[in-house]
């Protein structure tokens, strides 16, 4: 196994996620791009778990150079990131749907962050 392959795939996926977050105007598509970035990070964690562990084949576990005494730390980190992503999507979609109920739009450019809610109503009406 050449470990550079999954690393480069993860880097390209992360770049695609960054591009999508910056390019898209729809909030749900931005959330999809964020999912791509989180998956790239997960892929890096799992690949690092495989490559670092096989690089440490001859090192004793109690030595100071052994960074992870747990043999599956990368996979467990990936599981934790998956759970975090699920929570993020839940709260993010609740926010998006509530904003849609208020404004009938999910376009991020029209979100007024510097105005209060009622002032915005007065300006719009």
């Amino acid at each position, binding site marked *: 196994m050449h470990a*550079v392959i999954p690393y480069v795939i993860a880097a390209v996926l992360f770049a695609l996620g960054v591009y999508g977050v910056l390019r898209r105007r729809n909030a749900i598509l931005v959330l999809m791009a964020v999912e791509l970035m989180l998956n790239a990070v997960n892929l890096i964690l799992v690949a690092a778990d*495989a490559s670092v562990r096989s690089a440490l084949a001859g090192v004793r576990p109690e030595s100071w150079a052994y960074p992870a005494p747990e043999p599956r730390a990368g996979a467990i980190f990936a599981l934790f990131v998956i759970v975090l992503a699920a929570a993020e999507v839940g709260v993010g979609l609740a926010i998006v749907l509530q904003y849609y109920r208020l404004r009938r739009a999910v376009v991020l450019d029209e979100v007024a962050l510097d105005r209060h809610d009622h002032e915005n109503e007065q300006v719009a009406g």
Partner: protein
Amino acid sequence: MTVADALMLALGAVAVGSGALVVTSTHLVRAGLYLVISLGAIAGLYLVLGAELVAWVQVLVYVGAVVVLLLFAVMLTRAPIGPSPGLDRPAGPAALIGGGVGFGLSVLLIDAFRWTRYDLPEPGTARRVGEQIFGGWVLPFEVLSILLLAALIGAIVLSRPDIGARPDPDAPAAAAGPPPGPVDETAEVAARLERIAARQAAAATRHRQVATTGAAADTSPPTANRATAEPAAGDPGPAGPAALKDQAREVVFGAHANRPALGGEPDEPTAPPVLEGTSRPTPAVRGRPARPALPGGGTTGEESDA
């Protein structure tokens, strides 16, 4: 170039290609479906890298739950089925920054790892990952469960407008009132309600008249002879409510007093007292001997037609 390398290249090509379609497609629903393909290919990469449990959790959570949530949100926001024109900003700055990030990360990782061969780790089983999670990682695991609970409550609070909503000073007064009932008060419903009220008032006055006349007329003790004290069926009026009450008490407590004693000699069964006019005799069941005639006028000849 081993089999694992070829597999990873193929799955990576699928993941990157469908990921590019996710961020460039003009159909909202198609973007979600391309995201399914991309995440599935990444799950395949996890399998090749030996993280089996992560791969299945990815399929379950991402493909099964997160993408479904995203598609639900797409449909709840009334997204058009066809292509949406105003979906993207100008591509220049985003492509610049995204390309820069991808190029920088790729150069960094290629320089760090070169074309070094690593031994593919043996495929991990869910048992070892579970031992690790509930052994050394149990505290982050519990913190993560609290975070999931907080996210759940937060999503509920966000999506319910009646929790924590401040009163809007600009809202019209009509919207501030209580919500209308499920049944509109049309003229028909109002007329029916009036009729019900009139019937109830008439019943109340009749009941009051019965109470006064019954107390004056009925002077004999009501439990002395039930056959004479009991009113006729369907006409409980002249006896009054006091007699009815005594009768009901006799039925209830008389059954308790006449219950068969435990361990005693079973005497012949006595027919249960029957409030006349309130119950009918049980018809004879087919294939069973008829019970003795009930005081309510039960007939025993009903099994002849069985």
